[in-house]
C-alpha cells in the first residue's frame, strides 16, 4: 500500500541543512501475540519510517539518468597505478590513489558495446521492491570499463553475451538506479515500459 501523495515525506536542502515537510512516520499501536493456548508470547512493534539519504558526489550520476545520460568516472592521476581506469559503478574517488575521479559520459559506449556478462531471474523479491516480476538482473560489461554494472532487463529474456542498450526514465524520474534499465539491442521505443526512452 502506498501513502497518499499528501502524506509523503519531503526534504529540501536550505542553507546547508535538511528542511523536512509531510509525514515521515505513521504511528500505529502495537498488538499482542498470543499462542494457541491464549498465553502471551510477545508484542508487535510497528515502525513506518522514511530515511533521508545524501548521494554526495554520486548525485551527478543519479541526476544524469533522468536526462538520458550514463556518467562513469575515471582516474586521471598520472602517478596512480589505476591511471585512466574507468569505473561503472561510478566511484567518486579512485580506490587506489583516493584522488577525486573525473566524470566521463559513457552513454554512447553503452549504446554500442554493452553486453550481458551474467544474469538471473526471480519471482521472489524482498519487501519494498517496486520492479515488476519476474525481476531479471543483468550484469552489464562495457569495452574499456574496469567493472561490471548490475542492472535490470526490462524487455525480453536475458542471455549471457547478448547485446543490450540502456533506457532511461526521462519522464518523472525517481532519481534512483531504477531510472536506468536495459533492453536487448534492436528493441523498439513502443516496447519500452511507460516513462522510459532511449535518450
Amino acid at each position, binding site marked *: 500500500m502506498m501513502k497518499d501523495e499528501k502524506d509523503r515525506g519531503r526534504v529540501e536542502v536550505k542553507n546547508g541543512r535538511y528542511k523536512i515537510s509531510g509525514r515521515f512516520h505513521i504511528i500505529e499501536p502495537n498488538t499482542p*501475540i498470543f*499462542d494457541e493456548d491464549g498465553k502471551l*508470547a*510477545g508484542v508487535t*512493534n510497528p*515502525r513506518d519510517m522514511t530515511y533521508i*539519504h545524501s*548521494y554526495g558526489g*554520486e548525485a551527478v550520476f*543519479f541526476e544524469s539518468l533522468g536526462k538520458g545520460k550514463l556518467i562513469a568516472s575515471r582516474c586521471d592521476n598520472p602517478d596512480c*597505478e*589505476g591511471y585512466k*581506469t574507468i*569505473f561503472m*559503478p561510478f*566511484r567518486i574517488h579512485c580506490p*587506489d590513489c583516493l584522488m577525486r575521479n573525473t566524470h566521463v559520459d559513457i552513454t554512447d559506449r553503452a549504446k554500442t558495446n554493452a553486453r550481458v*556478462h*551474467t*544474469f*538471473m*531471474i*526471480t*519471482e*521472489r*523479491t*524482498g*519487501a*519494498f*521492491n*517496486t*520492479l515488476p516480476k519476474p*525481476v531479471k*538482473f543483468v*550484469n552489464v560489461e562495457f569495452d574499456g570499463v*574496469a*567493472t*561490471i*554494472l*548490475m*542492472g*535490470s532487463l526490462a524487455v525480453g529474456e536475458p542471455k*549471457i553475451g547478448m547485446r543490450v542498450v540502456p533506457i532511461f526514465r526521462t519522464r518523472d524520474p525517481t532519481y*534512483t*538506479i*531504477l531510472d536506468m534499465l536495459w533492453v536487448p539491442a534492436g528493441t523498439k521505443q513502443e516496447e519500452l515500459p511507460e516513462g522510459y526512452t532511449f535518450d
Partner: protein
Amino acid sequence: MITFSDRQLRIPRMSRPVYLVTGGMSKFARAFPRKRTEELCIDALTEAAQFIDMTPAELKKYIHTAYYGHFADHFGDQLLGEAVIHDRLGLDPLGNIGIKTGGATGGSTLWEAFKTVASGYSDCTLAIGWERMDEVPTDEGNHLISCAADKDWETPLGHIYTGYYAVMAQKYWQVYGKEEESFRRTMAEIAVKNRGYGLMNPHAHGGKEITVQDVLDSPVVAYPLRAYDCCLMSVGSACAILADERTAYEMTADPIRIDVSAASHTLRVAGRRNMDIPLLPNETKDQYDDLGERFPGGERYPGFTGFLAARMAAYYGYNMTGVKDPSEDLDLVELHDAFTISDIQTYEDIGIRPYGEGRTYVESGDCYHTNPQTGEPGKLPANISGGLIGNMHAVGATGIMQAVEVAQHIWGRWAEMHGDEEKWERFERIKPGNWKDLQVKGAKRGLAISHAGVGSHVTATILQHPDHVLDRGDE
C-alpha cells in the same frame, strides 16, 4: 589491475599461541516465539561450561573480555544488543564490543577474541554470537539482508540477496560448468549431502532426506538457484572460550590450538576489478596461465566466479599455521555453504581444488564423511554439521558454530554432543532411527570458513590438536 604490497602480504605472527578451551550452542530454529535472545545465549554458554565440567558461574570467573557477534540490529529493533546480552550474562564490568561483518560475523568475532588473547590483553575471552531473524516477516527479512548490498546501486534491484549469488551461479555454470547439466546436478548433490548430515544433528533445523531430483524440482528462488540450493534463515546462539596456554590448561586437559585470519573484498560484485590470482602454498606460478584457454571466461579473476577474500583469508591462515595443502594437512572443513554455488566457488578459493575444478571435490566423493563411491572415509569431509543449508544460518552465530563443530571432531566428542538422547528430547526433536555417528575418526586438524555478503569479509579459523601442530618451517 590490483596489486598488493609486501607489507600488505605480510604473514601475521602472534605474540603467543591461543587455545580453544570449549564451545557450546543453543538449539537452532526458524523461530523461537517463546524464547528471548538472552535465553539462547545462556543455553550456548551453559553447554560450553558443562563441556568442561564447570558451572556457568565457574566458567565466567575466567572471562576477561567479551566479543559479541550480532549482524543485524534492525532485525530485532534493538541497538546495542551486545550490551543487553552482556548485562544478562552478568559480565559487567568487563570490557566488551559488538562485531558486525555480515555473514562472517561469527568468524570475525572469533578473530577479535583470538587477537585479544594473542596480544596478551586478556588471558581468556568469550566469543558469542547470535541472530534473531524471526522478528520480521520473511519478505522484510529479505529486504534487510539485501541492505548488505550497495543500497544505491544494488538493493533497489529486487531487494533480494539470493539474486546476487544467482548471477554468480549463472556465470560459474557457464565458465567452469561449461553449461553442462551434470554440473547443475553436482550443485544439487551438495544440498542433498548437507541436509542429510543435518538430520544427525539435534541442533539443526534443516535436516531432511532429499534427492538430487528434489533439489532440481524445488521452487526457483532466483534462477538458477532453487529453494534447496539456499541456506536457512535461523535463530540461535553459539559461543567459544579462548585462552592462552597456561589458562587453557587450567580450565581443561584438552584445549585445541586456534588461529584465525581474515580478508575482505568489495561488497558489490559489480565493483570487482581484474587482477592476478594470488597463489596458495599448494599452487605454482604458471598454474593458471592457460585458465582462460581451458575455461573460456576464466581469465577474468576474480570476476563473478571467485571470492578474493576467501583466497586471501586462506593465504594468511595457511601461512600462519604451516598448512601447505588443505587436502593433505586437514582432516575436515566446515565451509560457508550459503548457496550450493558459493560452496563450490570456495573449494577453489581455499585451495581444496584448483580454479575450474571445484566440482571434482564433490564428484570424487572426497567431501563426504564416507565416500559414496568407495565406502571408505572421505578424504576431507565438509560440513558434517549440516552447514548453513542443513544445520543453520543464525548469522552472528554461524562462524562460531562451524569452529565448535570442527573442534568436537578433534576432541573426539562428536557423537557425545550429537547423539545424546536427552539433548534430542530437550530440543523437542526426534532422533532418527538411522542416526549415524559422523565422528571423523582420528581428526587432528580442521578449518572453518566464515563468509559475508558476496565475499566482503571472510575469515579462516584453523584448529589443531596440540600434539599435531604443523611446522611452519620458520621456528
